[in-house]
């Protein structure tokens, strides 16, 4: 305490140099020492902790930022991968659609050809059947006609052929046999 009073006294007594400006170097020195003392105390008990906390927070922030960057990077990669997958899928789907369209067209074409062939075959069969039916009908008609003619002739001849006529027929037939 005495030291402090001495210093104060010493400072108030200075009237030349800096003291002429109203500044007391002793007081200033005292204040500087106090400041340094307070600084070291503050540093020891507060600042280090604050710095440590701030450092930890900075680390966390850095880590978070790093994680965020990584996540962003991964997200970008994922997006890129997803885009690639989508692009590949789209290409594949385009190929599949094109293939399906082509196959559908082929199937339609084939079906059309088959239908045409079937239709042609049906026409041919129908024509053949009609031809056969017509031929059969003609043959049947001819046979019926011949039968009718034969029956009619038989009836007429049975009535018309007498012994004389019969002998003429026989002689003519025998003549034909001879000539054969």
């Amino acid at each position, binding site marked *: 305490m005495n030291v402090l009073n001495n210093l104060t006294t010493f400072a108030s007594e200075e009237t030349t140099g800096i003291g002429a400006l109203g500044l007391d170097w002793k007081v200033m020195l005292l204040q500087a020492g106090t400041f340094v003392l307070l600084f070291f105390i503050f540093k020891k008990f507060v600042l280090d902790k604050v710095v440590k906390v701030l450092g930890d927070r900075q680390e966390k922030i850095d880590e978070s930022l790093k994680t965020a960057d990584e996540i962003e990077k991964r997200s970008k990669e994922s997006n890129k991968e997803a885009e690639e997958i989508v692009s590949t899928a789209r290409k594949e789907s385009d190929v599949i659609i094109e293939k399906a369209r082509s196959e559908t067209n082929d199937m339609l074409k084939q079906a059309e050809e088959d239908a045409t062939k079937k239709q042609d075959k049906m026409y041919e069969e129908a024509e053949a059947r009609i031809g056969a039916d017509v031929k059969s009908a003609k043959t049947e008609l001819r046979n019926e006609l*011949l039968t009718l003619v034969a029956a009619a002739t*038989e009836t007429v*001849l049975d009535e018309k*052929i007498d012994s004389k006529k019969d002998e003429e*027929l026989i*002689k003519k037939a*025998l003549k034909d*046999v001879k000539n054969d």
Partner: protein
Amino acid sequence: MTRRMLASKIAPMLLESSNREALVKQLAAYLVEEGRVAELELLMNDVALELERLGYSDVQLVSAHAVSSSVKQELVQIIKEQTGAKEVSLNETIDQSLIGGIIATTPSTEIDLSVRSKLKTLGAS
């Protein structure tokens, strides 16, 4: 003895034998004894064929009306030419279903000149 061999034996005997009745009886006895009565009809056909081969043709003549002698002569002539027979005997039958014409059947062939057959042929063609 086969049927044909038997026929070839009987046919000349029929031509040569004066007692045909006895020959027929002997043949009948043989067939009965041998158990070949069922072959009689076929044997007769074979005998007729054999007789034709020897120059004697037995002809069944079917007609719708009675046939004149001139027609018969002409028919006999044709049969002789066709079969090479020296003698032809006609067995006549009337069948009006023939309508007209004749059917002459020899053991080896048939001459069908009937109207019925011609109409049948026409109907079948």
